[in-house]
């Protein structure tokens, strides 16, 4: 335990020690360390707020004094005003909550469809070598084309309602989840599979009780990115043609040269994505409680 004795002398090790199980020999030292960690965290929050204030403040000032043209670049106060009008008086397309609900519906359905198909196909190909070898060139080819463009195709083939947006969102989600599920299945510890087989697991049990739980870490990691992609898919789908939704709102603001409207729409999308991210992290912590280090404790960018 020579590590323990040198730790207090070296500050860079002391901060890393946060991630290690508590082995604090000296409680006063430990609480001093906890205090310094807390102080550091407060500093980080303060600096974050400062960045926002400087950024938004200078944007507001630059546009107010016409250094840059608010007509092209929007203006924070204008964006807020826009959001307020939208909430109180509704948008050109109808009440605001309706637009949000439409986009949310497209996103969530697309996300679920894409994720379920991605996991299913990923597990299937991950478990079946022949299928994987047959399909891998096609999947690589499909993955290399810019898939948002498929939104245009879906707008033609599926019409301008819900279906085309769901399809666009789903296809974006599918590939990300598929690759992760496939990789996750491939990485399953062979010992665990051997153990389950000896214990009498048939193929179905092997898939549901060993392969999928083991691949879940990979799959859930992909879900974090995927929800954002589903939102992109839904909005892009709306840009290709729609009658409602936040994307359509942005599209019509752009048509009216309303930069503040575009920014207000973006803000709404960001809020939706953040809420969904929080929900997925909660889901992750619930599904993967068996993991030594629950997520959400480390720094994420």
């Amino acid at each position: 335990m020579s590590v323990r004795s040198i730790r207090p002398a070296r500050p860079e090790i002391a901060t890393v020690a946060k991630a290690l199980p508590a082995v604090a020999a000296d409680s006063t030292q430990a609480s001093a360390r906890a205090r310094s960690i807390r102080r550091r965290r407060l500093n980080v929050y303060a600096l974050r707020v400062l960045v926002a204030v400087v950024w938004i403040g200078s944007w507001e000032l630059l546009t107010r004094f016409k250094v840059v043209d608010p007509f092209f670049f929007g203006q924070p106060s204008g964006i807020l005003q826009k959001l307020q009008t939208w909430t109180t008086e509704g948008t050109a397309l109808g009440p605001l909550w309706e637009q949000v609900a439409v986009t949310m519906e497209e996103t969530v359905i697309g996300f679920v469809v894409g994720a379920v198909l991605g996991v299913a196909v990923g597990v299937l190909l991950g478990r079946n070598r022949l299928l994987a070898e047959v399909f891998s060139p096609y999947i690589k080819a499909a993955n290399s084309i810019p898939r948002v463009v498929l939104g245009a195709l879906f707008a033609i083939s599926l019409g301008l309602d819900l279906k085309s947006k769901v399809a666009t969102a789903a296809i974006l989600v599918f590939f990300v989840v598929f690759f992760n599920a496939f990789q996750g299945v491939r990485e399953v510890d062979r010992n665990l599979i051997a153990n389950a087989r000896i214990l009498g697991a048939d193929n179905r049990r092997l898939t549901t009780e060993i392969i999928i739980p083991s691949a879940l870490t990979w799959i859930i990691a992909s879900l974090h990115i995927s929800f954002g992609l589903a939102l992109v898919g839904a909005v892009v789908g709306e840009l290709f043609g729609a009658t409602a939704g936040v994307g359509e709102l942005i599209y019509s603001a752009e048509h009216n040269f309303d930069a503040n409207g575009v920014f207000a729409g973006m803000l709404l999308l960001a809020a939706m994505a953040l809420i969904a991210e929080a929900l997925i992290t909660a889901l992750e912590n619930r599904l993967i409680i068996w993991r030594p280090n629950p997520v959400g404790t480390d720094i994420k960018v």
Partner: protein
Amino acid sequence: MSEPAIELRNVTKRFLTPSGGIYTALRDLDMQVAPGEFNAVVGPTGCGKSTTLALISGLEPPSEGQVRVNGRPVTGIVPNSGFVFQSDAVFPWKTVLDNVAAGPRYRGTSTREARKQAREWIARVGLAGFEDRYPHQLSGGMRKRVALAQSLITEPRILLMDEPFSALDVQTRTLMENELLGLWSLTSSSVVFVTHDLEEAIALADRVTVITAGPGTVKGTYEVDLPRPRNVAEIRFEPRFVHIYQEIWSDLREEVLVSYERQKHSAGAA
């Protein structure tokens, strides 16, 4: 003598190496384990001990020769077998209770009944109170107990163990060895216990099989006529134990040296 519980006849096992070559892990291996016998297999690292267990369990087919368990040729996973792996093979996403209940459930017992049996076995291996823990919340020794209960709950007729205690500290290991003997004495299972530790082999087994440096084949088998029940911590000091140890070691030493020389050479070449 009655029919052996486990029999390997002239077994050869070759592997395809990643570089496309062929590696012979076992060559012309003959081995028999009588019903209810505790057989310890020793040999230098890489001599094919784990491979032998994979063949007996049906996880791998032999390239040549025949493997028979309970009188039948092995064609797939052997039913009524248990396997304790060298590395951790308990399922990290299942609680202790569900890990131990897995075997009966996979074999058709209802979840309720399987959990009831599992509780009994968890108590038997000294883990009562830890039913709801996940493996990462347990020590290495406790995880081994879970693995042991997980295998034994299915009441296997043959029990295969691959260096199960090699990762444990000496004290825990001696405890576990004694507990294994206690649990095994209540069953009539035949055991193949792989280890690279000759002392452990003699302390536990009725018979020790020495495998040569790879490609592995049987160099010799030795009766261990020490009385049971045994206390693993004390039996090492018995004159008879020391005598058997010396006898086997003189054979094993050559193989260990061969293996060591090879490793030195391949390390030098790399």
